[in-house]
């Protein structure tokens, strides 16, 4: 699973992206975020601060995961 981080989420993660195997079991976006929290305490300590997208669409926690998904983590947007 590939994770990409933007803006202050990248600062919190310390990296722009992360690739790791979620292992057996995880099947939803919520599961993926839980695994990510374990891997990245910088993000995990304030998980409620971040929004997530799955394959470039805003994600809901219950959304199902598929092989090859890209999950992006970022703060509320502030464009314009």
């Amino acid at each position, binding site marked *: 699973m590939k994770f990409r981080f933007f*803006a*202050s989420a990248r600062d919190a993660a310390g990296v722009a992206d992360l690739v790791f195997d979620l292992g057996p079991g995880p099947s939803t976006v919520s599961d993926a975020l839980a695994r990510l929290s374990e891997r990245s305490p910088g993000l995990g300590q304030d998980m409620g*601060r971040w929004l997530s997208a799955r394959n470039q669409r805003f994600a809901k926690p219950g959304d199902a995961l598929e092989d090859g998904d890209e999950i*992006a983590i970022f703060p509320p947007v*502030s*464009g*314009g």
Partner: protein
Amino acid sequence: MPPPEDSVVVRLTGDPIDASRDIALARRTSIGAEVTFSGVVRGESKGRRVTVLEYEAYPEMALAEMRRLVSEARSRFRLEGAVFVHRTGRLLPGETAVLVWTASSHRAEAFGACQFLVDGMKRGVPVWKKEHYDDGAVWIEGDGGVQGRGPDCE
């Protein structure tokens, strides 16, 4: 660059925005009512002097969301032409960060579509601004918030 078939220009760019060029690309014939919005970098934020405003995008998703908003505006407002451009990188006060141009037969639709696209961008296009000051820099989170806090109430 040839004019787009559908009179829509949606772009992220690291270069200064050239509004007249992009509008000329989108404007096929005189449609009737045209509205232009520019988001311009302010030199001050909450009493602090802003030296640079840095914009970052999640490019693939930002473009997809911008195109989706234009598509929705087409049906809601009978939009006949649109330009939607956001600049990324380091901008100075006075530079244009975002350009929205809408064209429709009637002014109510052109105004409505322009507002719709700007509001939609503020809510859901994955772009973030980082304010640089003389003594530091901070990512702005949400429409008016500062990192780690929710939006400020005004």
